[in-house]
């Protein structure tokens, strides 16, 4: 087996993983909105030409949960006659910063290489990830199939039926994939000493 520490790419990815962990910790230890806004600016600058896309993805991801929490807090503060703005600014900036750091990390670092110190872990992650990608594509296909085959907006029962059919398909596919992978591992002597 290759020594992952000898691979400069793996070393760089492992250092990036460490830097990411430290950045996340720092973002939760700082409680001044100006510092958090500064951190967000630096993260977007590091994203370079992809900054617009990164920010748009971050906003789309955090909007539903943050909007619900912010509206709830706004109402609570209004009932208690407290000014809510500083808390809301702090909460939302922190969530934006943490999500932006994570998305930048995901975009820039090869996690499989960073975890290359364990063969079983890399294999497990690789197999689970490839299966998850297959299932995610199938999930989108099921959704599009329902929309394209329904003359009207699908009703509650239609969607339940499609969900049940999809779950059954995933189980079948999972069983077949597990069997194929087991045969592949056996034929390659993966667990032979």
């Amino acid at each position, binding site marked *: 087996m290759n020594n992952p520490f000898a691979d400069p790419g793996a070393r760089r990815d492992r250092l990036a993983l460490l830097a990411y962990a430290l950045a*996340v*910790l720092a*973002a*939760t*230890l700082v*409680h001044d909105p100006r510092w958090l806004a500064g951190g967000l600016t630096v993260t977007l600058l590091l994203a370079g030409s992809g900054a617009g896309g990164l920010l748009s*993805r971050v906003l789309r*991801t*955090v909007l539903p*949960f943050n909007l619900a*929490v912010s509206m*709830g*807090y706004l109402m*609570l503060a209004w009932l208690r006659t407290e000014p809510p703005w*500083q*808390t809301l600014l*702090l*909460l939302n900036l*922190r*969530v934006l*910063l*943490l*999500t932006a750091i*994570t*998305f930048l990390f*995901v975009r820039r670092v090869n*996690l499989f290489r960073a975890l290359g110190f364990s063969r*079983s872990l890399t*294999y*497990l*992650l690789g*197999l*689970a*990830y490839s*299966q*998850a990608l*297959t*299932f*995610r594509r199938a*999930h989108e296909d099921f959704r599009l199939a329902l929309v394209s085959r329904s003359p009207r907006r699908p009703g*509650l029962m239609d*969607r*339940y039926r499609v*969900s049940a059919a*999809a*779950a059954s398909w*995933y*189980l079948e596919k*999972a*069983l077949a*994939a*597990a*069997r*194929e*992978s*087991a045969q592949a*591992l*056996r034929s390659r002597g*993966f*667990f032979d000493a």
Partner: protein
Amino acid sequence: MHIPDGFLSPQTYVPAYAVCAGLWVLGMRRLRARLDEETLPWLAVMTALSFVLMMVALPLPGGSTVHAAGIGLLALSFGVWMSFLAVSLVLAMQALLFGDGGITALPVNALAMGLAGSMAAWWTWRGLRRTNESLALFAAGWVSMVLPALLVALVLGIQPAIAHDTAGRPLFFPFGPEVVLPAVLLPHALVGLGEGLLTLLGHRYLTRRRAQPA
């Protein structure tokens, strides 16, 4: 049920990571003896299955949606430790490969959903299976959804008390348990019915299929 990043204080997630890391190592050690060319692909594929089950959103009357997690199914099919590791892997994949979910929330979610949810499912099934197998499977699925929701709600609810500034303003999740407990528990008690059904049907299906020769 997932907690996004930015709502848990370091006082919460740092000790949770310490506990979780210890349990991950322990779980991997316990599993290593069972890890072979049959179990490794099973764990990987069931991890992916759990990942996709979390994507199958079931619509609720009123416009909102909920999703299953497959924790009961994983725990009963592979045992508590493998289920804990698989759910942890799903959460890590969601956070680090798909950019979905929180890295600071990962250990709390893993402990609540992966460990407590799996243990609750396993022991509920063990306790009830002599009375009625179907009821035991259904209850195992339901409890694997509701207990983690309760734990997550409690962790969120204590944030204003443990992390606030000198003026008493919250620094992380801003609502106490009196708000967050009913808001989280009521929908999950309903989602748990779907999870119970999934566990009942899925476990029977898997047991039947695994008994068949390849």
